[in-house]
C-alpha cells in the first residue's frame, strides 16, 4: 500500500503545478480586468472591405471638399 505515498505526492505535485500556473496568470494581469476579455472574444475579424468604387467616391468627395 505504500503506493499511496507515490500517488499522493504525484497529485500534490500536479496541484502545485496548477497553483504556480495560477500565480503566473495573476502576475501577468489576467485577473485585473474580467469584463473586457469577455467582449473581446466575440469580435471576429471585423474589417470591412470598402468596395473600390466606394473608395473612389470617398476620395472624390475629399477632393471636392478640399478645393
Amino acid at each position, binding site marked *: 500500500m505504500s503506493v499511496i505515498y507515490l500517488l499522493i505526492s504525484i497529485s500534490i505535485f500536479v496541484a502545485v503545478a496548477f497553483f504556480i500556473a495560477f500565480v503566473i496568470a495573476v502576475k501577468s494581469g489576467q*485577473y485585473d480586468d474580467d469584463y473586457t476579455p469577455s467582449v473581446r472574444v466575440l469580435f471576429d475579424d471585423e474589417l470591412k472591405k470598402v468596395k473600390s468604387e466606394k473608395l473612389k467616391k470617398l476620395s472624390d468627395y475629399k477632393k471636392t471638399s478640399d478645393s
Partner: protein
Amino acid sequence: MSYFTPYSFKSFALGKTSKVMDTQNCFHCGLDIVAEAEIIFDEKTFCCNGCKTVYEIFSLNDLTSYYDFEKSPGATPQESKNKYDFLENVAIVSKLLEFEEDSTAIISLNIPHIHCSSCIWILENLQRLQRGISISQVNFIDKKVRITYNPKEVSLSKIVHLLNSIGYEPYISLENYETSRQKVDRSLTYKLGVAFFCFGNIMLLSFPEYFEVKEFWLDNYKPFFRWLIFMLALPSFFYSASGYYVSAYKSIKSGMLNIDIPIALGIIVMFIRSLVDILFDYGPGFFDSLASLVFFMLLGKMFQIKTYSFLSFERDFKSYFPVAVTRINANDCEESVAIYDVQKGDRLLIRNQELIPVDGILISEKAAIDYSFVTGEAIPINKNSGDKIFAGGKQIGKIIEMEVLFSVSQSYLTQLWSNDVFQKKVKQKHKSITDQISRYFTPILLLIAFVGFSYWIFRDTNTAFNVFTAVLIVACPCALALTAPFTLGNVLRILGKQNMYLKNALVIEQFAQVDTLVFDKTGTITTNEKSNIFYEGKPLSETNLIRISSLLRASNHPLSRMLYDFLPQKGKIKIQDFKELTGQGIQAKVEDDFIKIGSILFLGNTQKSMLLQTAIHIQINNEYYGKYVFKNQYREGLAELFKSLKNNYQIKVLSGDNAGEKEALEQLLPQGTELIFNQKPEQKLEFIKQLQDAGKNVMMVGDGLNDAGALAQSNVGISISENVNIFSPACDAILEASQFKKLHYFLRLSNKSMLVIKMSFGLSLLYNIVGLAFAVTGNLEPLVAAIIMPLSTITIVGFVTIMSNYYARKLGVRIKKLEVRS
C-alpha cells in the same frame, strides 16, 4: 459581470441591423439633428462636421464595423488645438508613461467616454489608424486604454490627438502625473487562490476521516493524512487569513470591537486546537473547517471589492487639475511647464475651457470666468485687467493671460479642499450594523465559552478545554460577517444599474436612518438644461423674431443657445458686423436693422431693479423692446416625489437664490415643506449642522458644487448630476439627474435591505445556537463542524441575494404602477 448591460450580446443577437438609416439622429453620436446643420455623407446623416469627420476616418480605414456593435456609439470630437501642447514636453511625458525604453513606450490613458463594446473594438484597433502603435488594450471597468507604441515613429501627443479626433478624448490630470507608476494590488487574488488551493486539497484528503471507516490500512495511514492536511493548512492560516489578524489587532488597539476579532479568534483557536488534536492523536482536527472558512470569507471580500471598484469614487481635487500649463517666457515664446514648476510672477496663457490652476492677476483686458466648480454659480463672472482671479475657475471665451501670485501648493483650491469641512469626516460618524452587533457578539461569545469551561472543569479537564475551544470555533461569525457585504453589495449593484452610485455600502445603512431631507434648489430640484422662458415687453413681429434668431445663432453663450432653441422661428439670414462682447451681449446688423441682444447694461440702460432675474434684453435700432426672462424649470416628477416622501420624512428646501420663486414652489410642493431662501454655502452648512444638533439624521441632496460643504456635513450627501463622470468630492452618492424621481424608491430599497440583513442575522444566530448546543455539551465532532460552517455560509449568501433582489423587483413594480397611474 452581471452589472453591465451585455451590449455585445444584444447586438450580436440582433445581427448587423444598425445600418438602418435614422433621419432623426446623428449616425455617429446619436444626437438630434438640427435641420439646418444636417450633413449627409455616404448615405448617412450627421449632426455636425466633427461627427462626419470621425466617420470618414473610420470608413477610410475599413473600421466601419464600429457602428455595428452598438447604435450611434460615438462622441463628437472636441476642439483640441494647443490643448495638448504640454505633451511635447519630454519631462512631462516621461512622468506620464508607464514604461519607457528605446523603441517601446507604454501609456495608460483614462477615457471617460468608454461605455460599450464598440468603444472596446475601436480602441483595440488603434494600430490600424496610426503607425507606430503596436498594441492597445482596453480595461472596460477602469475606463482605461493601455497603449504600447514606438516613440520613434509616433509621439504621445500625436496619439492623444488621434484619440481626440475620433471622439475619445483622454482625461489627463494631475493625478496621472503623480501616480502614473502605481502598482496594482493583487494580494487579495493571491490570497483567494491560496485559500482555494488549500481548501480543495484538504477537503479531498479529509474524506477518509469523514466516513470513519474502520479499515486497517486507513487507520495505518491516518497520521500521514493528518500531517499532510496540516501542511496544507499552513499557507491558508498564515498567508490567506493574515488580513483578519491585522484588522483584529487594529480594532483592539483602537478600542473598537469589530467583527474581525471573533473571526481572528476563531481561526487561531481552531488552528491551535487542531494542532493539539493531531499531535496527541485525539482526532483529525478542524483544518478542513478552517480552510473552508478562510476561503468563503475571502470570496465575500472579493465580491465586495469587485462591486466597489466599478464605482471608483475616490477622487480628490488633483484629478480635476491639468498636468501642465502654458507659460509665456521673457522673450514672448510659449512653453508648456508642469504645474508644480509654476513660480510666482510667471505669466500664464489660459485657453477657452481651461481651468485656472493658481491664483493670479488678469493681464488681458477682459475675461469671463466660470466659477461653477468652486461656487456653483453657472453664469460666468466678468473680470477686467488687473482683477484678481482665483484658482478653480474655468476660462470661457478667448485666450487670456495672467500673472501668477502663488505657487500651486498654496493656492486657493488646495486650501478649499484641505479645509476641515471638505475633509470627508476622518472618524466615521456611523457604525455599521455589523460592527454594532459584533460589539455584543464578542463579549457574549467569550462569556459562553468561559461558562462552559468552568462548568466542565470540575468534571473533566479534558472536556473543559474541548468545550472552550469548540465554542469559539463553532460560533465563528462567518455567516454574520458575510451577511452585510453580500446584501449591501447586491443592493449597490441594483442601484448602480439604475444610475445611482454610492460611495460605499455604508451609505445604504445611512440611507435607512435618515429622517430629514434637505434639498438644494438650483440644479437639484430645477434642471439646468431646460429653462422656462417667457417674454415681457412690446410685441415682436415675425420678421423681427427671425432676425433675432439669426443673430442668436451666431453666439455660443449658453443663454443665447437656450433662447435660440426656444424660439420657434429659426432664422438663417446673413448677418453683418457681428460683435460679441463676452459677458455682455451680442450685436450685429441684420438686413436693415441694427440689433443688440444682451444684458441691460449692454443696452446702455442703468435700471438696477431688473437685475434680480436672469434675462436677455432686446433692442432694435436703438429702440428697447423687451426681455426674455429665464425661469426655473422643475424636474419631472418632483411634485409626486415630494408628495410620497412627505409621509415618511421631513422635507426642507434651501436655495441660494432670492425668494422670487417662492409662490411657485409653495404651490408645487406639499404643505409643510420648509422653504429657505438667500442661503450662502456656509449658511447651508450651518443649517444642516443645526438640524443635526437637534438630533436629526439629515440627507442633503444638492448639485455638489455650491453646496459641497453642506453635502459633507450632512449624514448622507447626494449629488445630482447630469453627467455622472463629473461630481463633487464631498458627496456620498451620485444620482443621475434623469433618475431623480426614483429617489423615494432608492430610500425604500435601502430600508428593505436593512430588513434583509436583520432577518439574515436572525438566521445565522439560529445556526450559531445549534452549533453552540453541540459545542457546550462537548459533542462537536470535526464532521459536524465541517457541515455546519459551510452550510450556514452558503444558505446565508443565497438568502440575502434572493431577498434583496425580490424587494428590488417588488418596489420597482410599485414605482411602475405609480407612473402609469399618474
